[in-house]
Structure formats: structure tokens, C-alpha cells
């Protein structure tokens, strides 16, 4: 079917003061390339601060990449003037982690969902019809449209945020930790909803999470991000059955209860959890199976052996 999204050598440098107070640029995304097929469900997994959100915002041109290219349906987003870019942006939407901060507390649900539609000049009758249909799709009664965000539970709010992302009929949805803030018993409702609407509306997903179990359940391809780089990317089964990168192996080994739950995969993990400091080299082992040796991990290095006797 061909790729909907192609990222080529994306680099994103955050300017300004870092957390350490230093005034230099910080390379949050470091030379990332991948493509997402139309109707694909692409998973991006990695620990906090590794650059997932930064990468997502760069792809959507909310914070354009410092260098590199994003092709959406074959069109280089960097080559577009702002008016054209805006038209393209409608075709891609993002759902963030925190449903509390992503809805305006002073606006009714109906008004929140109307905004984009008003901007494109849709009349009220058509708007109402569309909003009711979307709310219905996410399991919220249209009659509740006149209510404010605080009158909804966290799970309901996240469903409303999803409905809002769908108002512009996007083809591509970035889901940045969409269930991380939800209770266990509510997560499943939202995950099912996301799978349903993907099917029904033929959407393409970039699904971001730190939870490798969840990504493996949702996605057909998984990319593992570590310190700004994609260190390994492959079809889900392959990644679990045969992780090549040391960091991926550690990640799989860290799944509580072991990775055995996942497709009976056996992983060969560095026993003490430590990883070597190998020079970076990206290799393509077989088609679509890219692996890099980069880890160079510092900081919280597993350190149980030293002091626990």
C-alpha cells in the first residue's frame, strides 16, 4: 500500500537552557529514519526522556525538525508554505497523555469539538450531526455535549479527546501514551476504542508508550528508542522472538514476570542487566529489521552485584 509517513534523518535540537542549567543545545532526537505504511500501527517504545514526544511533535511539524525530512503521503512537509502546511496538519492529529490538561475547562464538550469545524466553515447543523456521531463512536451520549470537562471521569475525558482528534477526519493519528494516566480497568475500554476506530476509519497510527507489553499488543511494527536514537525496529513478533540490540534485550528482560508472556519468546539477556558501551553502528540485518549497537548507558546502571552481599 505504500508508506503514509516517511521520516528521513530527523534531528531535533532543543535550544535554550536544559535541566542542568547549561545553555547549549540538547539533541533530543538524533538521526531518526523510519516509515509507516498506510493503515499501519507503528509502535514507538522507550523510557522517559528518550525523545518520543519530541520526535512526534517534529513529525507533525508542531515543532519542526532541526534537520531531516518528513514526507506525508509523498509530500515534504518542510517544503510547504504555512497555509498549505495547515491543510496537511488537519490530516494528522495527536492525542496526549493527560486528558485533564488537553481539554479547555471553560468550554463545553460540544464547543471543544466544534472549534476545528468552525474554522473550516462548517454550518451548525452539519457540525452537530458530526459531533454527535463522533461522541457516539467513543461511547459518550450526544446529550452530554453541553457539559464541561470536570463533569466527566478521566476515562471519559480521554475518549472525548480522541473524538476531538477525529473531527477533522484525519488519516494519521499520533497517540502519545494515551492510556498511561488511566486506571487499569479503564485502560482496556480506551484501547478497544482505539482499535475499533482504527478499523472503522482506516486510520494509520503512531502509538507511543513506555509499556512494551501494550505496544506489542497494539502494534504490528515496533521501534525501540534510546537516548534520541531508534536502536532497533522490526515487526513485533520478530522483535520479541529475536531482539538483537542490547537495550531492547534489557527492556524485554525488565517486563515484570518476564517476557515469556509475550508470544512465548525467549530472550537472551545480559544476566546482570548491564550493557556494554559499544560504538554506534546501524546495520540492516534483513529487510525491515534494522539494528544498532548503540547503548552507552550511564546513570542508573544496574548495581545490585556490588553491595548486596
Amino acid at each position, binding site marked *: 500500500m505504500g508508506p503514509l509517513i516517511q521520516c528521513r534523518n530527523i534531528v531535533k535540537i532543543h535550544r535554550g537552557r536544559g535541566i542542568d542549567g547549561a545553555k547549549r543545545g540538547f539533541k533530543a532526537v538524533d538521526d531518526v529514519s523510519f516509515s509507516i505504511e498506510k493503515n499501519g500501527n507503528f509502535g514507538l517504545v522507550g523510557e522517559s526522556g528518550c525523545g518520543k514526544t519530541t520526535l512526534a511533535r517534529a513529525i507533525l511539524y508542531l515543532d519542526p525538525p532541526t534537520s531531516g525530512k518528513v514526507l506525508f503521503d509523498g509530500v515534504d512537509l518542510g517544503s510547504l508554505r504555512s497555509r498549505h502546511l495547515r491543510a496537511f496538519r488537519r490530516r494528522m492529529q495527536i492525542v496526549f497523555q493527560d486528558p485533564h490538561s488537553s481539554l479547555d475547562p471553560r468550554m463545553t464538550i460540544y464547543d471543544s469539538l466544534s472549534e476545528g469545524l468552525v474554522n473550516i466553515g462548517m454550518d451548525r447543523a452539519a457540525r452537530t450531526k458530526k459531533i454527535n456521531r463522533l461522541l457516539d463512536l467513543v461511547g459518550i451520549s450526544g446529550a452530554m455535549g453541553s457539559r464541561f470537562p470536570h463533569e466527566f471521569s478521566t476515562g471519559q475525558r480521554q475518549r472525548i479527546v480522541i473524538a476531538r482528534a477525529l473531527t477533522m477526519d484525519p488519516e494519521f493519528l499520533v497517540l502519545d501514551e494515551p492510556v498511561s494516566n488511566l486506571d487499569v480497568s479503564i485502560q482496556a475500554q480506551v484501547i478497544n476504542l482505539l482499535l475499533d476506530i482504527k478499523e472503522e476509519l482506516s486510520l494509520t497510527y503512531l502509538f507511543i508508550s*513506555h509499556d512494551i507489553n501494550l505496544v506489542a499488543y497494539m502494534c504490528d511494527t515496533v521501534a525501540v528508542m534510546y537516548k534520541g536514537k531508534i536502536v532497533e525496529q522490526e515487526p513485533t513478533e520478530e522483535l520479541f522472538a529475536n531482539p538483537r540490540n542490547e537495550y531492547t534485550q534489557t527492556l524485554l528482560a*525488565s517486563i515484570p514476570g518476564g517476557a515469556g508472556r509475550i508470544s512465548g519468546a525467549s530472550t537472551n539477556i545480559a544476566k546482570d542487566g548491564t550493557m556494554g558501551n559499544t560504538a554506534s553502528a546501524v546495520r540492516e540485518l534483513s529487510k525491515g529489521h534494522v539494528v544498532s549497537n548503540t547503548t552507552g548507558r550511564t546513570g542508573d546502571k544496574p548495581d545490585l552485584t556490588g553491595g548486596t552481599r
Partner: protein
Amino acid sequence: MNTTEPIITIENLRVEFTQERQKAFALRGIDIAFYKDEIHGLVGESGSGKTVTAMSIMGLLPKPAATILSGSIRYEGKELLSLSEDALRTYRGSKIAMVFQEPAKYLNPAFTVGEQIREMVMLHKGLNKHQAEMRARELLGLVGLGKDGRALGAYPHELSSGMKQRAMIAIAISCDPDFLIADEPTTSLDVTLQLQILKLLKILKKMKRMGMLFISHDLSVIREIADRVSVIYAGKIVESASVARLFEHQMHPYTRLLLLSIPDARHRGKKLATIAGQVLDATNDPQGCVFAPRCPLAKELCYRESPKLIAHEQGHTSACHFAEEAWDL
């Protein structure tokens, strides 16, 4: 599973919060027993009463917002709820200690990690300066912060989140408590760090022969670390069993559904089981089963009568009228 006497026994504990004249029923009568040498996992969704349970044991419930309506908490047979604040303070730290979800909030930013440990052991164990210094080094070594001695002189902000949590653990175990409470100690950590902390706690339990209450909202974490599990829902313990038994066979529909709703790569593309509706609001005080509004098996009896926590075979307890029936969920 455990034939000795429990270290801590909680019976029919009911705790209520009053806020702006609204009453929130945080604990609706819970029963739970903790044993030496055993990690007891407490699992439940946010607001289910996990932290309130922990704070009740520690005697740290916020006053006057919280009221203990009834119940008892006994430590080796001694009633804690009737102790004076002074008497309680000697229990805290030396007999019962706690590791909090956000270590940053409980570490004192103005003192180095070493100073904080030294103060604890000089106060509670009567060690002199030199002994306290030795003890601090030993403890930091124990939690894996000993290698270069850097942590000893470090202020909390100089440590990464994983190191902070280790420092917090070192402080908590500094006075050799018999019982350690860990309230979601890994929830704010990345998975790779999480596993290290879980391993550390397991090793410490073995070495120190402590009893432990380990709180989490994540069943897979509980499965990894606990010996016994209790499931809490809306301020009620709904089920309790050994880890092996609970994951094999559930005797409460809530637990069963919770397990079925966990994503698993083997079932990619298939729908997850869901639990309809929302968690019972703490301001509600239903006459019957707290899970009834969401339970696919609920019958008229369930709304009328609150099920008691009843023991079945192998020390497996369940608070469901139909625990022994073979339901198909």
C-alpha cells in the same frame, strides 16, 4: 500458607474523610494480616484505599480530615490505634518503616543522604557518630549505592530518580524494621529501573527476614514480587490468596476481569475484556456489594446484601456471594 502468628493484623478498619461536609468512605471495613518473611501485595486502582491503608498502619492519617470509624490494627498483638503519638513515633522507623511513591517528597533536600541516615540511626539505635557513619556506608552498599561512596555525601537533587528511591529504601531499613511498607515504590520509574528496585526489595526481605506490604496498581508487578496478594476495590478487600493461587484461579469477578483486561501480545488484534462503567465514587455508601454496579454477574441479592470476606480452601478468601460458582467471564 503461613502457620506462625502475623506481625500485623488489621480488622474491620473503617476510615472516612470529611471534606466540605462531604463524606468519603475511604476504607469500608478491611481485614488483612501480614506475616514475617512474606511480601504481601496490595493491588487496586487509584482511589481504592491503598495509601489510606498504609497511612493507617503508620499512624500518619491526615488529621482532622480523616476519622477512624472502627476497627483495630495490632502489631504483635498490641493495639496501635490506642497508642499515644509519642509511643507511635518509636514504632515508626524502628519497627515499621515506609518507602513512599515519590521519594523526592520525603527526602530532606537540605541534608545529604549520609546525614539523613546517620540521624536516623543515632536517634533510634543510639549509635555514636563513628558507628553511624559505618552504618550509613553499609546501608548504601546494601542498596547498591556504595560503590564509589558518592551517594553518601550527595544531596537528594544530585541523584537520579532510581538512586533517590534506593536512598529512600536505605533510610527506611536503617533501623532494622520488622515490617516495611512500600507504596508504589516503582510507579514513577522506568521499567528497567523498576525491575532493579523489585529485585532489591526481594533480596532485602530475604536477608532481613522482614514482613512487607507492597502496594501497586499493576498486577504484573505484584506477580513479580509478592508472595501473597490482596485485591482492594472501593475501600474493600475483595479477594486474597497466594500469588500462585490467585493468578491460577480467581474467586472474585473483579479480579478475573482485571486480569483479562491486561494487554497481551499473544492476543493482538483481539478485543480486551473490559469492566463497564466506573469505579464506585467514595461518597457513595451502597447497601450491597461495592462491585455490583459493574459486575456482569450481579443478582438482586448483591444489591441487597454486602458479601463478607469468606475463607475458602488454601487460605483463599473472597468477598463475593457467588465465589464458589463456576462463572464464565
